[in-house]
């Protein structure tokens, strides 16, 4: 699974992109985020407040309960500030 991070989520985690293979029981965004938080302090800090995390799966915006599959590109980022 391709994981992408942007904005302050990227800077707190310390990388913008990584390839991970979450366990088989990680089947939606919410459980993925919980699993990621156990990967270290940076993750914990970046992902502590779910209300300010936006998620795209395969470049489409989704909710936290959206399903994910091993081959997906999952991006976690703060609310967008375009324009």
């Amino acid at each position: 699974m391709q994981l992408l991070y942007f904005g302050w989520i990227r800077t707190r985690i310390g990388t913008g992109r990584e390839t991970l293979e979450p366990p088989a029981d990680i089947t939606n965004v919410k459980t993925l985020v919980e699993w990621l938080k156990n990967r270290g302090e940076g993750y914990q800090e970046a992902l502590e407040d779910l209300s300010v995390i936006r998620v795209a799966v395969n470049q489409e915006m989704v909710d936290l309960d959206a399903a994910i599959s091993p081959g997906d590109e999952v991006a976690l980022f703060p609310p967008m500030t375009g324009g």
Partner: protein
Amino acid sequence: MIKVQEQGFDIGAELAAMTEGNHSVGGQGCFVGLVRDMANEEQISAMTLEHYPGMTEKQLAAIEEEARNRWPLQDVLIIHRYGRLEPGDRIVLVATTSTHREAALESCHFLIDWLKTKAPFWKLEASETGESWVAARDTDDDAAERWAAPSENELEKT
């Protein structure tokens, strides 16, 4: 047309290209967003725009499509820059053409309001006290919501 680019743009040339040879255009609306030198009472020395390559183009195309569905537009242009910019630099250009002025002006307003909250860009501001990420503003959410009505509700119903 969507352009996501690091380099600047020539507003005059871009606007002219939209109307050239099309004599049915009655009105052209446009909005330019620029980097300001002040934020939260701090002097800004630079702003770096990060974006999500691939998704950015898709989102901008979807926003363009939404504008075309809502107003009778002849052309739509969105140019959004990324990378390091300085105060006074242009960040974004949106422009639309239509037979009538109302459609051109309203759709520009719509485009920039939706870009603010739906285009995957994040802004890092540098000042004397360091770097900080620009927080999303509730007022931008409200502005985007104002346009939520027609087609989104239609989608929810189906």
